[in-house]
């Protein structure tokens, strides 16, 4: 089969599911909407896996390079010759990989939600939104046109908004949804300006053409965009930084990360899908997609590197202090995405220097498995305990053994303990950082210790700490909830062994990434140190954690308060923007704009009041005026008009 025969169905099936469940789900098949959603995703995922098989093993690899294939392309809006918004499908290693991740994790979440969301009033609406999200995310990853990516970028934004605010009767969920939408919208403003600059200078919106023109040092477009400058910085750097701003907003990078922890108000499977495995890595994907262009612009890569590493460290510190288990996972997500971002930042195009690119994509791939597993495990725990707070948990290991084991596997994976998936990908990330930027390597190494610490703090707080004292509330984990956990745990155990450099690399050629035993000693030691510290403090109820908090004093409180980032944002928006920009603007609107309009209306009314007496409503008066007018006109025409 040709790609074109079936590939469009991968995104279109979830869209069909959204339309079907969104329009008719509530009325006609409320009970079965979950099954329908799972079935649709199953077909879609099977097609995605089939595509990946064909691409990677049959016909994607030619002349030593993975080809960039465009099986489908539809010109949607044409501005002028050469510049158009297309809807197309671009197959290259990263888009095929993302397609597999998105459909697979989405399928797991669909299955898990069968149990988790059972009995929910808006069950079919929930599945409709999940399908909408899956469609949008697939459209994003296969985009062949930079404007298409923007289009689907906003669509995933709106599905994320809808799902965060799913429990719209809770004020906190509503405000979290608004916060997520506004913060990412603000970042997308930068993205849009970046797109416009790139399209203006590059003369096209098509990815392949754009990348080709902007990386060819002789092309007129490249010379134009690098010689033009604004505020002393070249337009190329501006454009890439603005595009990265959009990516950083979606990927919750410091300082635009504030929406992600609040987004945990949504149902937990949604957090697993959107806010851990797929949507939040869209920023990483965007940088990877434009990587050839980024790689020839050192300044923007430097920004990418430092934003990534600062986010990784910053979020890891906060994660150590949070008590809401989903918030710990959210900050951990920010931290892990920071790894992927700086791995891209330290990479260069082609060959060995591109190891960071492969490492970033590898970490994205493994992270999707273990982080969605962690979230689904947390969902199972919340389902049993009916609380997000650590203090309500403890000693759950005998009550929910499947969740316990799978959660432990995921914790070991994210901490970087061999032979779990996270170990391999994190090794590669660290190696890439070590080879190009020692400072970043130091931060990353320290952060990996912190990661191990906070993950095992979470693990022990949920499953150990005190003896079992929980009622099951009559809830048991159904098979539909256990199955995804087991499948994902198996994935977490296995995917680390994939020789990723064979499939994904910055220039499409295979990259050998031999395993360096001596190099992996330091990170593993850091991870084991973090785990031991967490075991010592949190395994049994002891005063040690309080003592530690007291010893750290102000630093602990600052981290607990998330370094006052929310307060800073509140201060900037409420005190500065509202008072200095909003209020004067409102004054002008109220007294000058509205005043002008009201003045016109008022004077019109006054004048009408004076002259309305002429309109007597008596037909004979009008006839008389008419008659007098005719006589006057006759006199004028006959006698005066000479």
């Amino acid at each position, binding site marked *: 089969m040709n790609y074109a025969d079936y590939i469009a169905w991968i995104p279109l099936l979830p869209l069909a599911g959204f339309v079907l469940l969104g329009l008719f789900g509530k009325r006609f098949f409320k009970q079965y909407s979950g099954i329908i959603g799972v079935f649709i995703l199953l077909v879609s995922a099977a097609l995605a896996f089939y595509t990946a098989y064909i691409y990677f093993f049959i016909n994607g690899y030619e002349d030593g390079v993975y080809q960039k294939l465009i099986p489908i392309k539809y010109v949607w809006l044409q501005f002028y010759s050469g510049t158009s918004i297309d809807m197309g499908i671009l197959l290259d290693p990263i888009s095929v990989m993302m397609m597999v991740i998105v459909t697979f994790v989405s399928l797991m979440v669909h299955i898990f939600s069968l149990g988790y969301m059972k009995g929910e009033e808006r069950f079919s609406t929930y599945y409709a939104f999940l399908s909408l999200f899956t469609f949008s995310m697939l459209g994003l990853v296969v985009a062949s046109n930079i404007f298409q990516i923007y289009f689907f970028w906003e669509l995933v934004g709106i599905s994320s908004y809808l799902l965060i605010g799913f429990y719209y009767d809770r004020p906190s969920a509503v405000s979290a949804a608004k916060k997520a939408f506004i913060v990412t919208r603000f970042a997308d403003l930068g993205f849009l300006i970046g797109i416009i600059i790139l399209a203006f200078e590059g003369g096209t919106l098509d990815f392949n053409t754009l990348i080709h023109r902007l990386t060819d040092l002789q092309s007129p477009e490249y010379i134009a965009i690098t010689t033009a400058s604004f505020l002393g910085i070249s337009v190329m750097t501006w454009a890439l930084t603005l595009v990265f701003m959009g990516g950083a907003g979606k990927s919750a990078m410091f300082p635009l990360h504030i929406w992600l922890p609040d987004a945990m108000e949504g149902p937990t499977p949604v957090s697993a899908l959107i806010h851990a495995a797929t949507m939040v890595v869209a920023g990483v994907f965007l940088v990877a997609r434009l990587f050839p262009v980024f790689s020839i612009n050192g300044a923007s890569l430097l920004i990418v590197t430092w934003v990534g590493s600062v986010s990784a460290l910053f979020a890891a510190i906060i994660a150590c202090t949070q008590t809401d288990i989903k918030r710990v996972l959210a900050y951990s997500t920010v931290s892990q995405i920071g790894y992927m971002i700086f791995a891209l930042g330290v990479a260069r195009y082609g060959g060995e220097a591109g190891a960071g690119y492969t490492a970033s994509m590898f970490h994205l791939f493994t992270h999707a498995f273990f982080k969605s597993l962690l979230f689904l495990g947390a969902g199972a725990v919340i389902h049993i305990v009916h609380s997000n707070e650590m203090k309500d948990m403890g000693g759950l290991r005998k009550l929910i053994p499947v969740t316990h084991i799978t959660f432990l596997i995921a914790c070991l994976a994210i901490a970087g303990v061999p032979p779990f998936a996270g170990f391999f990908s994190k090794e590669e990330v660290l190696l890439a950082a070590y080879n190009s930027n020692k400072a970043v390597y130091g931060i990353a190494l320290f952060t990996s210790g912190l990661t191990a610490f906070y993950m095992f703090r979470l693990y022990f707080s949920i499953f150990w700490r005190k003896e079992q004292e929980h009622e099951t509330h009559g809830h048991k984990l159904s098979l539909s909830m256990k199955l995804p956990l087991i499948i994902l745990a198996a994935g977490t155990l296995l995917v680390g062994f994939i020789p990723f450099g064979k499939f994904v690399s910055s220039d499409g050629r295979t990259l050998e990434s031999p395993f360096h035993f001596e190099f992996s000693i330091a990170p593993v030691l850091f991870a084991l140190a973090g785990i031991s510290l967490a075991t010592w403090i949190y395994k049994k109820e002891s005063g040690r954690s309080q003592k530690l908090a007291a010893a750290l004093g102000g630093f602990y409180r600052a981290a607990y308060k998330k370094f006052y980032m929310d307060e800073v944002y509140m201060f900037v928006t409420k005190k500065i923007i509202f008072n200095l920009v909003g209020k004067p603007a409102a004054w002008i609107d109220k007294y000058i704009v509205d005043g002008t309009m009201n003045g016109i209306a008022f004077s019109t009314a006054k004048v009408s009041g004076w002259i309305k007496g002429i*309109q007597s*409503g008596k037909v*004979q008066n009008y006839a008389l005026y008419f008659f007098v007018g005719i006589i006057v006109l006759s006199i004028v025409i006959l006698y005066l008009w000479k």
Partner: protein
Amino acid sequence: MNGIPISHILFLSTALFFIGTYGMFTRRNLITMLMAIELILNSVNINFIVFNKYLWPGKLDGVFFTIFIITIAAAEAAVAIAIIINLYRSHRSIDVEDATELKW
């Protein structure tokens, strides 16, 4: 007929026109106003006929116009009387000053 000078006949039509106009302006009864309009129309008819007869005796244009006007006047009377009947049904009056609903 040739013995009658044109000015006599024009005097008659002018007189009819002004009588009609006067009636139009002073009467409040709709039927009387309708009659006044008929007077005005007929004064115009006389003008057409007399100018046709005295100035271009070989032509018929003025006569045709007159016939048109008579036809239209008949139609107009039918419509006007229908309106008047409806007005009477709703207001129990055909005084123009009584229909004030649409006044400002």
